[in-house]
């Protein structure tokens, strides 16, 4: 008998994602993004995102079903992001999922978005090991997770204490007059730059900070330092190489991210590192992570870029894993929690 067919719905930020998965096989991954509508605001506007989700939801479900070659009645279970994320945006996904699951009379799994970013790699590289460290970097999150017991037990090792890494990319891109979202533009500009040209600070890496925040991140100081450096160059009328600034800034971010991720693996005796989130598409992060993992004998797993950004496939993948494990489904009245703790992989009682 084949594995059940799982539909996953993701609406925690500005992407309306619907994925369809059977076992660990990805059948469809439809995403509608409202990113263009946010560009003129220079960042994600929650109200604009929510309005877009309502309009995109059903067409995206239909597109996913068509892509997978299945009918809505073939779905055996529905999984949805229950949190964390933008409260208003999450509600569109959860309301849709509740109505869909109850009308189709199939189980509903309200799952943790962060765990989804790690488990999605099963669609690309096969089953995860019993234990792995997850490094999640995007405009919304920068965190290190310890994923144990086949994703049943997830612990937050650390997170950003101020800005997310992706936010820092957006802000520096804006100062450099590069478009939103800034990540891909910084990456592109940095390819022609010297990462050692300017020594920007590495947040929370001093001995004292490392003792207190071994796995936490801070990008606010870096952001300020880069902004100040650019302002000084501009007011002095000095020539400034955008590629050098981009490369030096990017190096400061990915140096800290990879250093702390490798340290987390070492400290916990973990041999597998999974990187997810939009910033995982950054070419320098991939290269440096690969280099440092090889040195430390750690297996690096990074899903394809379209699976790293927010999408429905990651939620379907996690739902599929929970179904295979026989996990209990969520009740119809589960609340949507914008601050859902990472340890809650699937939501049960209120």
């Amino acid at each position, binding site marked *: 008998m084949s594995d059940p067919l799982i539909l996953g719905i993701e609406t925690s930020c500005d992407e309306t994602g619907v994925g369809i998965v059977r076992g660990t096989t990805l059948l469809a991954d439809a995403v509608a993004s409202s990113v263009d509508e946010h560009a*003129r*605001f*220079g*960042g994600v*506007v929650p*109200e*604009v995102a*929510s*309005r877009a*989700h*309502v*309009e995109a*939801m*059903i067409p995206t*479900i*239909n597109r996913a079903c068509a892509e997978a070659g299945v009918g*809505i009645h073939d779905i055996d279970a529905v999984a949805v992001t229950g949190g964390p994320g933008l409260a*208003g945006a999450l*509600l*569109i996904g*959860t*309301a*849709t*999922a*509740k*109505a*869909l699951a*109850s*009308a*189709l009379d199939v189980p509903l799994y309200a799952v943790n978005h962060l765990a989804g970013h790690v488990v999605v790699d099963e669609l690309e590289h096969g089953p995860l090991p019993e234990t792995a460290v997850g490094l999640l970097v995007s405009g919304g999150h920068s965190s290190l997770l310890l994923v144990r017991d086949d994703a049943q037990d997830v612990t937050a090792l650390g997170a950003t204490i101020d800005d997310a890494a992706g936010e820092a990319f957006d802000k520096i891109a*804006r100062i450099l*007059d590069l478009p939103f979202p800034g990540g891909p533009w910084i990456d592109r500009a940095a390819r022609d730059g010297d990462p050692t040209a300017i020594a920007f600070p590495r947040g929370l890496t001093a001995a004292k900070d490392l003792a207190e925040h071994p796995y936490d991140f801070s990008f606010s100081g870096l952001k300020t330092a880069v902004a100040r450096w650019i302002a000084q160059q501009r007011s002095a009328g000095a020539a400034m190489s955008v590629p050098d600034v981009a490369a030096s800034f990017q190096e400061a971010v990915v140096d800290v991210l990879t250093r702390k991720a490798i340290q987390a693996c070492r400290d916990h005796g973990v041999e597998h590192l999974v990187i997810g989130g939009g910033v995982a598409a950054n070419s320098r992060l991939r290269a440096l992570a690969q280099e440092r993992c090889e040195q430390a004998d750690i297996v690096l797993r990074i899903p394809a870029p379209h699976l790293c950004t927010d999408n429905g496939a990651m939620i379907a993948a996690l739902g599929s894993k929970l179904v295979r494990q026989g996990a209990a489904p969520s009740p*119809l*009245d*589960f*609340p*949507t929690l914008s601050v859902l703790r990472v340890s809650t992989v699937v939501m049960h009682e*209120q």
Partner: protein
Amino acid sequence: MVMLAIDTSSPATSVAVLDGDVLLAHAVHIDARRHAEVLAVLVQEALETAGRPRVSAVACGVGPGAYTGLRVGVSSALAYGLAWEVPVLGVCSLDAMALAASDAVSGPFACAIDARRKEVYWAQYDADGERVAGPHVQQPGDIDGEIRALPWFGDIAAAHLELLHAEMADTVPYPDARDVARFAAHHVGRGRAIDAAPVLLSTHGHDDGATASALAGQHLLAPLPLYVRRPDAVESAR
């Protein structure tokens, strides 16, 4: 024809199952912050009470009202429609109130839903309960004096007794799914085909009167929230 109706445009989450003229099930839960938690449960219970009928259309109050509630209602209605493969009809929630209010008055009247920020969403109706103005969003004091002197319905109108003639307002405090169902069934029955082209409204419209003109003479609407206002967001100065 069995119709499932829902309305989440006010603090009330309400659900009704209507078969022709017969109300098979009806439930109202009042809690402005829990539409998303209670709606699917109320629907499931109502369908159970109604004897698990085969539903042939979903009707949804599309506001105007608090955005979060509207989005929960509309998203849910669309998902039921998708799963059951039945049409989803939008009804202006003020029109549903007007249907209930027209039983209580004989002349023209007005209905209101809370818009927060000291404003109300409102529409004006003639003696037959046909919408003649609105929906608009305004502070009660800014509404035309002649309209303010009409009988008003809606709990938020009752909160503005000094400005609105709202002695009877509490007889129809909120939009109710029962009236959304009656309204939709009535207009479907009058040959307004449920698959007729719906009014396409920009959900990014603000109250420049565009929503009111687009809705003039319209009864069955596209299943999309009636925001009336534009989103509050400031374009970056880059």
